[in-house]
């Protein structure tokens, strides 16, 4: 109960809950659409999805300032590569929120001369760039972790003094297995990095679909959105799972 209240008291936590609801509705709608006798349920799910989607705009109002602050913070990062990725990512997020605010103003009737389609495309594009740069940063962090794990393993092997085994057969398969094992160990050691990567990867399916770069069905987008929302919720509930800039 206390955990729920703590989450609900933060606007970001509440937004994640509604986002999870929105994408869960999308997924359910896709799954039920083929069923003949579920038309009423599908219609209700569509209405709920629309209501939550519209309402969520209120949570995003003012987030442009959060993004600006995040940009200022990312400039302070010590490592050059993450600094560059994060700063550019956050700048794109600022632009995305500005576009989103313009779209909100349009939807409530404050501005009449706004081309909705154009601004929606702009918003989706900058959101896409933001996620792409976030993934590049995640990739960089993963490579660092893999390097670290490899060095630790080499150190351990040296101390154990076992003779190295060489086998010519299935060299390619062995390399792939070795790589995947290394990747797995890196991510297992660093849960915030795993969570951030999963979240960004699932999120990127949404603008990819909107921009027509990679067309997915409603189910995939819904599932991706749901998983990323839940991952986001985890970082709100447990702040130690949030990926910190080095």
């Amino acid at each position, binding site marked *: 109960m206390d955990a729920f209240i703590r989450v609900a008291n933060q606007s970001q936590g509440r937004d994640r809950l509604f986002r999870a609801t929105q994408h869960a509705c999308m997924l359910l709608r896709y799954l039920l659409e083929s069923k003949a006798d579920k038309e009423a349920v599908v219609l209700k799910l569509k209405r709920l999805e629309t*209501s939550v989607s519209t309402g969520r705009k209120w949570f995003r109002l003012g987030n442009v300032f959060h993004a600006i602050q995040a940009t200022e913070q990312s400039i302070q990062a010590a490592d050059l590569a993450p600094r560059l990725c994060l700063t550019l990512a956050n700048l794109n997020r600022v632009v995305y929120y500005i576009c989103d605010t313009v779209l909100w103003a349009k939807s409530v009737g404050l501005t009449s001369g706004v081309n909705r389609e154009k601004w929606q495309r702009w918003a989706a594009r900058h959101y896409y760039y933001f996620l792409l740069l976030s993934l590049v940063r995640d990739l960089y962090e993963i490579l660092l972790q893999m390097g670290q794990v490899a060095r630790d393993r080499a150190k351990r092997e040296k101390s154990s003094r076992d003779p190295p085994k060489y086998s010519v057969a299935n060299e390619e398969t062995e390399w792939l297995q070795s790589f995947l094992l290394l990747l797995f160990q890196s991510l297992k050691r660093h849960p915030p990095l795993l969570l951030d990567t999963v979240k960004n990867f699932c999120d990127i399916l949404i603008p990819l679909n909107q921009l027509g770069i990679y067309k997915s069905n409603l189910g995939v987008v819904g599932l991706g959105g749901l998983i990323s929302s839940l991952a986001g919720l985890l970082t709100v509930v447990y702040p130690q799972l949030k990926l910190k800039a080095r």
Partner: protein
Amino acid sequence: MDAWVRFSAQSQARERLCRAAQYACSLLGHALQRHGASPELQKQIRQLEGHLSLGRKLLRLGNSTDALESAKRAVHLSDVVLRFCITVSHLNRALYFACDNVLWAGKSGLAPRVDQEKWAQRSFRYYLFSLIMNLSRDAYEIRLLMEQETSAYSRRMKVSGVGVSGGVETVGPGGPGTPGGSLPQLALKFRLRILLLARVLRGHPPLLLDVLRNACDLFIPLDKLGLWRCGPGIVGLCGLISSILSILTLICPWLRLKP
């Protein structure tokens, strides 16, 4: 910037901002109507107000849980009167939020058969009860503080000694023998009470803010339930003032009234 980010990270803060904007629209709409503004502009303001109202309902989803939790916490207060007032207030608030959720479900098309009028009346009734309990609690706090102030004053007079004889001298000429003296005496007593009240409220800003906020909020359900027709202008103004006061307590937590 940091202050804004910290402030808007609270979901309650966004709800209060939406509320301030909603009642500002209401007030503006009323003013424009009276000064003969264009129908197009009036329609636009009304539309925006509607959007803000619906948006706030989404922001309030889940608040029932919070109110119940607050009620549970209030049960443990040592003072019997405070315990009763605060607990019942939170329970009414929980019911108000529950009704509000039903209204949201109706408006968003999830439950189309919801009787909007009936549930709206119910929601405003619970809101009114909650506010009455809040004001009762405020009145109780004021009475306690006034008694404290009176005791402190009496103690000060007793210590000085001169005041006692002075008091006796004052009562002398205005004694029971003079029937006409009762009215000015009553007026004097009333003025002293008012001064004492002003002193108490000035010395306790959180209490003053809470009284003002609850008093302003009171006009909203009274108008909606038809108990006291104020008109949209007054309701808009009161809503705006109470929203701003709420935002103040969120920005400066030391201005929040502690139970």
